[in-house]
């Protein structure tokens, strides 16, 4: 049952992802990509438990490395996306 439940969530999320992105204008493809890339850093959440649970020494090392890598992905991804989007401006009439 557990597997079926997970599969259901997986399927719905994939469809949702398709729907969300389908109509995005080309102008925003780069920020969209780096923004969604930052979301894939969610693996950080999994890394936290591995790094802190003290299962074995190896698991702690792997977990700590994973935390560092995923944090680079998350922090870097969001910040760089914000930097890009801050530049997207529409000219307001004649106001310069």
């Amino acid at each position, binding site marked *: 049952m557990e597997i079926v439940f997970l599969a259901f969530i997986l399927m719905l999320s994939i469809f949702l992802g398709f729907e969300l992105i389908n109509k995005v204008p080309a102008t925003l493809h780069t920020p969209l990509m780096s923004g969604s890339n930052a979301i*894939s850093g969610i693996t950080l959440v999994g890394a936290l438990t591995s790094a*802190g649970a003290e299962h074995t020494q190896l698991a702690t090392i*792997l977990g700590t490395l994973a935390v560092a890598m995923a944090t680079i992905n998350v922090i870097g991804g969001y910040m760089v996306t914000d930097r890009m989007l801050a530049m997207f401006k529409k000219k307001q009439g004649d106001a310069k």
Partner: protein
Amino acid sequence: MGIELLVNLTYVAAAVLFIFGLKMLGSPATARKGNLVSAIGMFLAVVVTLLDQSIIDYKWIGLGIVLGGVVGAVVARSVAMTSMPEMVALFNGTGGIASLLVGWAALYGFDPNSFQMVTIVLSILIGGVTFTGSLIAYGKLSERMPGRPLVFGGQRIFNILLILGIVVSATLFVVNPDTIAYLYIVVALSLLLGVMLVIPIGGADMPVVISLLNSYSGLAACAAGLAINNIILIVAGALVGASGIILTQIMCKAMNRSLSNVLFSGFSAVASGGAAAKIEGEAKPMSADDAYYVLEAASSVVIVPGYGMAVAQAQHAVKELQEILEKNGAEVVYAIHPVAGRMPGHMNVLLAEADVSYDLLLEMDAVNPRMETFDVAIVIGANDVVNPAAREMEGSPIYGMPVINVDMARNVFVMKRSMASGFAGIDNPLFFKDNTRMLFGDAKEMLGNIIKAFG
């Protein structure tokens, strides 16, 4: 129990924030807020996870977060907009390796059942491919590696054997989880596969590869989520995986090629070269002053930027020219090919950096029907995306790819460093057309000279 419920409810909230964030990223007016919304979702998910009772020791977590946070922040602040594609590739890679490590570490937390063993192996496999694939993409995009497809004899057979090797060792490991040697083989072969998949792909196809790798990094997180039974990883990973695939499809459509053609055509590129018809004629160079006379009289101008604009850092000079032309009474628009530059939307980011209003940036389909009405089309460092061979020459490797038909404008100015062919290595008959004039030199310098002539 109480804490577990709190954690899971917060994950639901985080998922909602991710979904809204992605939705808002779809429109220029709300995009920045959307990114913030999704960052808040991430923050919530991370903070609530720290409450998890199985976490005993916070010092390693703290170390990892501080280390990663500092590196990520410094890099994100200092990277130039022109090198955004390789940056995204690198961030992608760190996400991939993190999923690999999470999957690996999951082996030691509990006694995984066989379903979890499969997902652990999957997260290691996809994470590993994402990691090395992204590193190679980074190398090609930053020109630390040759951009041309790297091919060797027997590559196809080698790859098939490699994939077989992965399937066999992965199966052996799932069946005998205690034999750790199988795991090492899976890790090593996955890393090798990432390299093998990206080296035969040419630099011009990198936009497709980046979006595909982006999708992989999501799928890796998703597999890791299945392995450790964490719903937010599954949801967020699947969202990213799906969105990456959509973007990949858009890119492929823009090049009129199938995904498998992009991924595997490098193998056959060596054989089919030289079949295209010879292009006869002479390119006609012109000076900045001559360009000035034509532009001064023009009433409508379309600017077509390409990767060369990024290399020359010419976006600010372009914006300056746009303002001068507008003051002179001309209409100026930009035509952006979907795969101009080294990643989708790359040109838009650069022009936004130069403060160009985004409603002046037109997509190819909006510009092509009215191309005849433009007095001048200025091509700045673009080549393959304006190559009329895609329309006219059946033997050409890019035949059938939709291009911006600049050759139909009354005058075409091409700014280019030299007569060398583009990233795809294909000759461009545009340079020999009667209405084409070549402005040889650095794009930024050349634009400066034209601007000076106006002054």
